């Protein structure tokens, strides 16, 4: 479970998050909000990429400020642009990257890569150079590279904006099928319309919080 206690943050003195208190026991959480409202900052809190100026962020009881290593192991993070999170030039090497960082033994690495690729029928891409994949394939590889490290929670920051409709549907289905608790930041409201809970951020505060059926129409109206 994710817990935020009186979390505030600013960049160069400009407040971005402002006294947020939240407990998020749900398994499917969506986050919406305007450009610059603080969504990405909020998501980055959850795996310690951003450490708040004030307050605490706890993931399953672990403080992100105190044990970054444990947090990185617990929280997988999928970014908007797969091109900017795939580190190695070959698909299999990239999946191995996170495992090597965690000092997983060599033979186990191979088995885990096989399993992760099989999950989305990506086996045939194993030895392919990343830059020749389609956008949707790249995003699924990026997701596999996160799942292969066995996180407990997966956070997505706008994972479908760069994809076309068909690729978007492929990634949306993958997110739907995840057994992990998941938090998704997205401008694509359809993507989160079936979630258990949606937060709307405005000027660094939670301006709405509830079922998608309540929050999304409110957000749509606000954006007119």
């Amino acid at each position, binding site marked *: 479970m994710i817990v935020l206690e009186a979390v505030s943050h600013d960049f160069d003195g400009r407040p971005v998050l402002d006294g947020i208190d939240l407990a998020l026991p749900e398994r499917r959480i969506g986050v919406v909000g305007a450009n610059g409202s603080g969504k990405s900052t909020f998501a980055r809190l959850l*795996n310690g990429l951003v450490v708040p100026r004030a307050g605490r962020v706890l993931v399953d009881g672990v403080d992100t400020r105190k044990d970054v290593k444990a947090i*990185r192991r617990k929280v997988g993070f999928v970014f908007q642009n797969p091109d900017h999170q795939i580190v*190695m030039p*070959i698909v299999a090497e990239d999946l191995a*990257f*996170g495992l090597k*960082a965690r000092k997983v033994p060599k033979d186990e690495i191979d088995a885990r890569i096989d399993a992760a690729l099989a999950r989305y029928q990506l086996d045939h891409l194993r030895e392919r*150079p990343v*830059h020749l994949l389609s956008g949707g394939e790249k995003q699924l590889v990026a997701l596999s590279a996160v799942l292969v490290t066995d996180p407990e929670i997966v956070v997505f920051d706008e994972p479908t904006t760069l994809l076309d409709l068909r690729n978007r549907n492929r990634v949306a289905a993958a997110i739907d099928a995840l057994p992990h608790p998941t938090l998704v930041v997205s401008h694509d409201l359809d993507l989160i319309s079936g979630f258990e809970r949606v937060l709307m951020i405005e000027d660094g505060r939670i301006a709405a919080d509830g079922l998608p059926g309540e929050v999304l129409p409110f957000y749509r109206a606000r954006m007119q």
Partner: protein
Amino acid sequence: MTIGLYHPGTSPLHRASAGAKVAGLLVVSLALFVVPSIPVALLSVPVAFAVYLSTGAPLRQLMAQLRGPAILLGLVFVFHLAFGTIEDGVLAVGRFATLILLASAVTLTTPVSEMAELVEWLLRPLKPLGVNPEKVGLAIALAIRFVPLISEEFRHIREAQAARGLAANPLALIVPLVIRTLKSADELADAIEARGYER
């Protein structure tokens, strides 16, 4: 990976380890400079040429790679004929021809990834000095990863500017290219940390 000048094959050199090949190259270059002997210099060239051919790369590619060095060596030889002795000319040309042939043979038969592993291994003793071989390995992989990203960005930018009616202008191309790729680099750095890479 089969990028670079590496030419895949099954020759004895292909099967030898990268470390052995580079060590061999070092020993030969030292020996050639320590032993200034005309017969050795003369003999070593055909031997090196045989090694070069044994890589099994297509003859045309092999010959094309030698054109540049051959012209230079010709110049050096003429220089010695004019201002020095024939012996010195033979010695100098023989040494360089041997080394260039052997170095090319090593490059042709060793994949970049194996070379990178060798570098990481070689740097290990420097750890106490603060050199981190794994970081060097990461930098090599990232540079290879960046090349297609840059060319993709470059294509997009060139198109967008042609559409604005801007003729190819190096300033107009490189400024957005640098800024866009720097932004990608920032995001990539975040992703590397998010994926649990330890500094």
